[in-house]
């Protein structure tokens, strides 16, 4: 017997995607939004979404950890986190108390390419929330004791992270893959660089980079565009115009040949490993085709990597691959882990799956399945106002527009087997690979020599990455 119940909607809903009735012609369309520029140069993106009484903001300052000076790694990230630690009129504790009092969600972080803040308020708290947000962005004072405190916490945070291989392997990999290039630097900073960072560095970083012409301010939610624009202008018109910093990121060429880094974590019962090379950027014209091939290769549960290493052999809990797309070419990585004694078998198998991709390509069945999968999984990624604000801010940062989303399904559908063959050859490295392993060196060191002519070693308790 079926007992059933239906709910009256407890929250109303928003319609953001148009889907025609026939399943194979479903298309995706980003809701419309306006783009304007304030007189001081700040870019403003506004998207009305009235169905839930929430307003989401997403702010991008177009400077990330790539602007950190050598030896001062972590400065962009530290500056972002310090913004809320005291303003001209509020102590750190007052900022937190005021944010918490309206149940606000606020976070400000740096990545390699930019610094981003997100904030979300119930509509009834909008004016209060906006007042706080503006205070945090325009009036931070970076108290010395807060700077010292946060640096000390970050140093300990790295120690704590190093107690767990999978929380730091990405940082070791970035450093090893990118060498002296900007993407090598640890975004959140290093135990080596932190003691060198001073309050003056933070203040200077803020003054140079947090300027209107370097800022994108996106909002999505329950507001009237003209009113929101007026509110933002009222707060930000007084932010003095200033030349934005010149930021150039040198793209790294792929590593030639093979290199391997083994980081010794002597208590490890499992080897964590990344295999990859320099991949693609966010605006690569082939990026949808690359995503299709990568989904087949290592981007979903039934991918070839996960099928081989998990489903068929039980070597691991999970194996995957990713193209991290950034301003300039980010890494392409195969990532997995396995118990110490099966390290060689798992690495050989991952390389075998990569080699098979080159030899025999992907099948029509895989291609068709992947297209359905990618389209089917996309809508929930632009479901909420915070997701939408983030999407439009990032499109703007990368110099893209709504056509990137609106043409997405069409581009997926257009990928042919011939395209995938070219893409495999062009974008999936085979002979040039970087390996990064964290594991128990006394057990696995003898067997890693066969993977690369160059072997480097580190110990996890040593400072740095």
């Amino acid at each position, binding site marked *: 017997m079926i007992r059933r119940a239906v709910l009256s909607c407890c929250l109303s809903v928003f319609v953001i995607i148009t889907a025609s009735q026939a399943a194979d012609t479903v298309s995706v369309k980003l809701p419309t939004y306006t783009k304007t520029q304030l007189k001081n140069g700040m870019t403003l993106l506004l998207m009305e979404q009235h169905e839930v009484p929430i307003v989401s903001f997403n702010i991008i300052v177009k400077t990330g950890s790539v602007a950190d000076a050598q030896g001062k790694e972590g400065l962009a990230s530290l500056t972002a986190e310090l913004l809320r630690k005291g303003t001209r009129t509020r102590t750190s504790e007052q900022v937190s108390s005021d944010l918490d009092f309206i149940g606000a969600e606020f976070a400000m972080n740096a990545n390699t390419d930019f610094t981003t803040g997100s904030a979300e308020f119930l509509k009834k708290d909008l004016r209060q929330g906006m007042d706080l947000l503006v205070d945090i962005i325009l009036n931070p004072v970076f108290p010395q004791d807060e700077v010292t405190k946060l640096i000390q916490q970050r140093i300990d945070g790295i120690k704590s992270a190093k107690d767990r291989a999978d929380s730091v392997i990405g940082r070791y990999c970035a450093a090893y893959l990118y060498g002296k290039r900007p993407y090598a630097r640890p975004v959140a900073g290093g135990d080596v660089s932190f003691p060198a960072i001073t309050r003056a560095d933070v203040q200077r970083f803020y003054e140079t980079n947090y300027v209107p012409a370097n800022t994108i301010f996106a909002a999505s939610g329950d507001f009237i565009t003209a009113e929101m624009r007026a509110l933002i202008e009222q707060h930000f018109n007084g932010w003095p115009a200033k030349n934005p910093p010149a930021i150039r990121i040198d793209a790294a060429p792929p590593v030639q040949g093979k290199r391997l880094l083994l980081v010794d974590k002597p208590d*490890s019962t499992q080897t964590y490993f990344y295999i990859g090379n320099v991949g693609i950027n966010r605006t690569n014209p082939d990026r949808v085709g690359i995503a299709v091939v990568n989904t087949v290769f290592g981007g979903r549960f039934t991918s070839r990597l996960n099928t081989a290493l998990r489903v068929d052999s039980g070597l691991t809990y999970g194996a995957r691959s990713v193209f991290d797309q950034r301003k300039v070419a980010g890494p392409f990585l195969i990532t997995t882990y396995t118990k110490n004694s099966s390290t060689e078998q798992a690495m050989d198998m991952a390389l075998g799956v990569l080699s098979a991709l080159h030899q025999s390509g992907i099948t029509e069945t895989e291609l068709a399945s992947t297209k359905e999968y990618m389209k089917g999984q996309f809508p929930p990624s632009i479901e909420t106002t915070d997701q939408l604000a983030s999407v439009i801010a990032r499109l703007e940062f990368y110099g893209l527009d709504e056509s990137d989303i609106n043409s997405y399904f069409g581009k997926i559908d257009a990928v042919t087997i011939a395209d995938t063959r070219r893409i495999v050859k062009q974008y999936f490295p085979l002979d040039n690979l970087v390996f990064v392993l964290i594991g128990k060196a006394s057990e696995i060191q003898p067997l890693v020599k066969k993977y690369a002519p160059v072997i480097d070693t580190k110990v996890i308790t040593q400072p740095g990455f």
Partner: protein
Amino acid sequence: MRIVVQEDHSIPSIAMYIFYRIGSRNERPGTTGLSHFFEHMMFNGARKYGPKQFDQVMEASGGSNNAYTNNDVTAYQDWFPRSALETIFDLEADRIQNLSFDEKMIESERQVVASERRTSVDNNNLGILEEQLNAAAFTAHPYQWPVIGWMVDIENWTMQDLKRHFDIGYSPANATMVVVGDVTLDEIVKLAQKYIEPIASRGLPPTVTTREPDQLGERRVTVHKFAQLPILMMGYHVPQSADPDYYPLQVLKTVLFEGQSSRMYQRLIDKDQLAISVRGDYSFALDPTLLTITVRPKAGIQPDAAERATYEELDRVKSALVTDRELEKAKNILTADFYRRMKTIDGKAGALGNYEVFFGDYRKLFTAADNYNKVTKEDLQRVAKKYLTEKNRTVAALIPEEEAK
């Protein structure tokens, strides 16, 4: 099977959750972790859709899935476009009805779960410590063993154990399905009548009668382990979700731990600078459970200094009422969190299912905000005095060793 449907046409997508009321609390020593292992086996082939086909068919239809097991339930989650709706019903019905147990798949999946345990527990100091905390805090009740199971049990489950688990846990009557998204009630009813209703009912899991006896004094566990930083966990016995004290305890937890203006953050991280993080956890539970506090002391700080400061903060909420502003702030945080969880079809499906399972009725989700709002300052003081006591406490400490063994 009880089915809860919420129509939400915001995106052409659907979230479906199926909660089976069976988890590690239904297990026995020797086969700990069986519920979680069984969760994995539910993806490894049934009669119509053989090994690998569940995932292959789902992904080719545009869907993806996941599943989780905790102390109390095993939950299966499917996220898919509207066009895949009937296929998903067919897939789910097939495995509820006709799961197959292939010896080779069992052995392979056993290794997968062992790898999962290595990554979530054995190579994760927090995982090790939490396991030790629960093992010490519970002496009679099944919450004492880890959901993923002891490694030696993972190595020793048999086909027989799996079959018995299927028989006791996977009767349709032991499950609740929640469907949220671009559907109509009528079409779900029709599909359920076609695919789910014909499935024969089997037995239900034996009632878990064990109740943890009152704790008679503080218990302490120490883990010596290669590490750079220590970790402290304290667990206090607190009631199950359906108990009236659940809401005051959640509000108290919010005052103490949520946000950078919370009492614990202010004291341990901001003012005294004893720790790099502090958090409190009190999850849904069918039986009396633990409210846990996790503190990561800073390098060079004696863990007992961080521990003492934590207790002083707990004493403060016992000896004096919290302020009106703190109470209102906590309620605002909880209300905002509630709305945020309900923004997505996935969040709604999870919340409806959890209220149905842990509070006995999905409708109680809609009175949650009222229940938070009814909590008074006096309630907070009362529950702090009743539960957050030395006698009721188990402490687990991870003490770093420089050499790995």
